[in-house]
């Protein structure tokens, strides 16, 4: 795991100064005060130093192994070749293999795990922040987050043997993971899946062993040779005593279906013993166990000897999906149990039951908040990539002349053709499009990091605080996933617009960002499903407790902002928006008819999301204004504001002296100006949309719901 591009980078000045990092550091340390997490026992070995070192490593690997190959993995779409035995294999660019090796070798896959699992007990919020750099550099070159998600589900619901064999190898980067949910006839509607699981041996050492038969589609990373083995997590139904599949989601169970069957448990330990591991890396035998060199060469572990643990399971690639974007990740159709291979003598894909029969959905969706925050971050980082590219382009590209002339008595616009052309960024409309992107993407980033910190709160906070964070996440997660998917996609559209015709060509990166981002409104729960989840469940559950809690948080920010002259007007707008959302929620459900209430769930979610983002921006602005005041007093006290109040006590803050020394970046003036302008933009241009969206919700407008199919 070396840094090939390092040499070149030393020799030339990078075109991209690390500006996003400044914003990330500001959100993490100033606004969210994540350094307070180090006072909790799980994170007590950490400090701001270790958090920064993780982000440094992520930034470096992303710059060396991801960003330079983003276009290549788009151009060289995965393709299949036929093996000698007639099965298909997926061919991927070399860069894809190297990106995986660098990511896995860095320890990112296991970052959040316990030390004894090779992890660093990293808070989720820092892990999420680190992953942002990879997403921004190339969203599709790696599907590592699927592997982490897969291993996490096994850690939560698997048997000790399943954790030892499957999760550990995934965290170490030897094996990759997938999530197999959809089937050709069952996409969003999982209750209709038809994959059958028939009991084979109740007493296998890896858990009750079943034979699976069926087809799965949309499986990212379903087939490749980037890793030695692939661990499929598969939803399937166990037939009842009459051989029938139970309708609905209750009959769904979760299975581990590995591409190659692992060794019997006892022998696994031997095969992956430290001695074998040490021999694999170059010259590592001379080094003691505690030294630093155990991990870097992990990816060079040779495959198991032929025959040993190489029993091919009866799961084969049926074909690839050819996608609009996100092309670096192979997306597959898989056939289970078609008899191509006969593991242990019979046809049928061998799968080991995870958790209890019928408990599959709960096990699979165990970390749904994290998964959805992950999608939101992906959308946000694609937005950021487009913003940065179009900002650079607008500074470089000279086109057109400034408008001159005109007066109140004779309004007209003139241009002086004698003048040299100016950079695009000199034009007001270009600036509008840049500021729009900035407000969408940085605002979304702030929201997602806030949600990520709530996840840490649910795991490590005191009981009441953890319960509160959990409730708040219930309401915010649909927004965290869907708001960036829609609005940062719009940001990508504006990035293309700024480039003009060039943006529409493949000579510039922005069209790819847009294509890649278009997926995010579709996967991990479509836009429509997120909206139904929000209005149909989240805001009404427990008598609207979650919505009430969110309103309390928003009101806290409003109260603080009222006292700041430059923010008081925004505070008023936000208070109005909150009232409208509350009223619309009531009106939507006032007839108690879900068909009427949910007919306009998406406009409701759009309005709700804008209200949440307005809140986030106002709170960020509060932190900046506080910061300015602290600066003018030449005082270096903790300046965490509004949202951070969730968990921090004054005592906790005092424990973190490192935080006291942190300041705004060198160019503090323009950094602050930019953030405050993005906040103003959001309130002036976006917040007014809230009322318009809510109008149809409040009146329960049935124009769409009632139109007949024939009339369309």
């Amino acid at each position, binding site marked *: *795991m*070396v*840094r*090939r591009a*390092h*040499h070149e*980078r*030393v*020799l030339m*000045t*990078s075109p*991209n*100064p*690390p500006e996003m*990092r400044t914003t990330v550091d500001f959100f993490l340390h100033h606004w969210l005060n994540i350094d307070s997490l180090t006072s909790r026992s799980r994170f007590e*070995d950490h*400090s701001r*130093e*270790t958090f*920064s*070192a*993780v982000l*440094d*490593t992520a930034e*470096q*690997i992303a710059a060396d192994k991801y960003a330079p190959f983003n276009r290549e993995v788009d151009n060289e779409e995965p393709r299949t070749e036929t093996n000698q035995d007639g099965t298909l294999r997926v061919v991927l660019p070399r860069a894809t293999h190297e990106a995986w090796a*660098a990511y896995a*070798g*860095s*320890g*990112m896959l*296991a*970052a959040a795990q316990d*030390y004894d699992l*090779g*992890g*660093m007990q*990293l808070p989720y919020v820092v892990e999420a922040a680190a992953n942002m750099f990879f997403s921004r550099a190339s969203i599709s070159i790696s599907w590592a987050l699927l592997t982490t998600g897969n291993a996490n589900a096994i850690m939560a619901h698997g048997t000790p043997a399943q954790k030892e064999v499957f999760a550990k190898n995934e965290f170490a980067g030897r094996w990759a993971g997938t999530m197999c949910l959809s089937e050709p006839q069952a996409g969003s509607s999982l209750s209709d899946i038809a994959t059958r699981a028939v009991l084979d041996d109740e007493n296998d050492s890896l858990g009750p062993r079943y034979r699976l038969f069926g087809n799965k589609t949309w499986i990212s990373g379903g087939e490749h040779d980037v890793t030695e083995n692939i661990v499929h997590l598969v939803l399937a139904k166990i037939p009842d005593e009459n051989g029938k599949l139970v309708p609905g989601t209750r009959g769904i169970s979760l299975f581990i279906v590995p591409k190659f069957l692992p060794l019997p448990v006892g022998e696994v330990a031997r095969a992956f013993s430290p001695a074998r591991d040490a021999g694999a890396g*170059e*010259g*590592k035998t*001379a*080094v003691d166990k*505690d*030294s*630093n*060199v*155990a*991990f*870097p060469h992990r990816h060079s572990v040779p495959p198991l000897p032929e025959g040993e643990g190489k029993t091919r399971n009866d799961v084969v690639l049926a074909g690839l999906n050819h996608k609009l974007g996100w092309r670096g990740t192979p997306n597959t159709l898989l056939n289970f149990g078609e008899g191509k291979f006969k593991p242990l003598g019979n046809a049928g894909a061998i799968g080991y039951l995870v958790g209890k029969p019928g408990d599959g959905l709960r096990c699979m969706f165990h970390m749904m908040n994290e998964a959805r925050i992950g999608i939101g971050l992906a959308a946000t980082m694609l937005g950021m990539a487009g913003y940065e590219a179009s900002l650079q382009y607008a500074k470089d590209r000279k086109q057109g002349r400034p408008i001159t002339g005109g007066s109140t008595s004779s309004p007209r616009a003139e241009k002086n053709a004698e003048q040299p052309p100016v950079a695009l960024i000199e034009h007001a409309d270009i600036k509008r499009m840049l500021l729009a992107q900035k407000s969408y993407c940085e605002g979304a980033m702030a929201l997602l990091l806030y949600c990520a910190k709530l996840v840490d709160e649910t795991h490590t906070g005191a009981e009441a605080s953890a319960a509160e964070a959990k409730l708040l996440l219930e309401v915010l997660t649909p927004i965290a996933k869907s708001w960036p998917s829609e609005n940062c996609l719009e940001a990508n559209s504006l990035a293309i617009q700024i480039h003009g015709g060039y943006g529409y060509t493949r000579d510039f990166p922005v069209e790819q960002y847009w294509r890649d981002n278009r997926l995010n409104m579709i996967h991990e729960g479509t836009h429509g499903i997120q909206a139904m989840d929000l209005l149909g469940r989240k805001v009404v559950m427990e008598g609207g407790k979650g919505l009430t809690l969110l309103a309390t948080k928003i009101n806290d920010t409003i109260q603080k902002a009222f006292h700041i002259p430059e923010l008081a007007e925004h505070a008023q707008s936000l208070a109005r928006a909150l009232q409208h959302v509350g009223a619309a929620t009531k009106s939507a459900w006032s007839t108690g008819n879900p068909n009427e209430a949910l007919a306009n769930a998406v406009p409701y979610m759009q309005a709700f999301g804008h209200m949440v983002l307005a809140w986030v921006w106002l709170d960020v602005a509060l932190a900046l204004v506080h910061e300015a005041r602290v600066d003018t007093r030449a005082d270096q006290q903790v300046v965490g504001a509004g949202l951070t109040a969730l968990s921090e006590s004054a005592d906790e803050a005092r424990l973190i002296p490192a935080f006291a020394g942190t*300041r*705004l*970046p*060198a160019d*503090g003036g323009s950094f602050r100006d930019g953030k405050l302008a993005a906040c103003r933009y959001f309130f002036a241009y976006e917040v007014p949309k809230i009322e318009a969206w809510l109008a149809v919700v409040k009146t329960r407008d049935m124009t769409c719901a009632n139109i007949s199919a024939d009339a369309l």
Partner: protein
Amino acid sequence: MKVLVPVKRVVDYNVKVRVKADNSGVDIANVKMSMNPFCEIAVEEAVRLKEKGAATEIIAVSAGVAQCQETLRNAMAIGADRGILIETDVELQPLAVAKLLKAVVDREQPQLVILGKQAIDDDANQTGQMLAALLGWGQATFASKVEIEGNTAKVTCEVDGGLETISVKLPAIITTDLRLNEPRYATLPNIMKAKKKQLDTLKPADLGVDVTPRLTTLKVEEPPKRKGGVKVADVAALIDKLKNEAKVI
């Protein structure tokens, strides 16, 4: 064999530096700092020597402000075993650093000191050579390949027009060039391990070294902006301009 690796904290190579308004130097307030890339290569080389069994202990040493600790932690995350910080707020010039390093060498008695050939901030390219002179050791500079054979180091050095392979008796000084290796990343588990490694802090006075600057910086300026080109009518005009305006022929 003990190996000493001096590492320098410099402005990150991604940062576009600006000259201070009063021309007294480069503005480094609140700018991202990281380890000098040539020093990273030096650490990596030492770690590889240890992996090969040629080295037993790697000591990273840095001189400068308190934040150099971060640079030392980074070196330890790459694989150094412990760190020494010589803490001072005084501006350090190459001779002062060489004297400090000599004092550390006298204490630690390493067989090999591997330094970056130069730092990307001042590009001085002096410290390694000065240290060799102060110690009276052999030196192999601009190394692109290092092999330890018993009591000698066989080092391939980059010289004008090619490569020169020399043999130096240990103890010796090696300075690294870009092609020597590709440094590994600081992995997450190793970042945590580095945090627990020993880091000692000394003051220049503890080592009996006077670090007072010997050189005075008079003025720092940005390179002149490139002027736009001109089109010439024909070859004769070009020759004329080269001869009389540019005065290069």
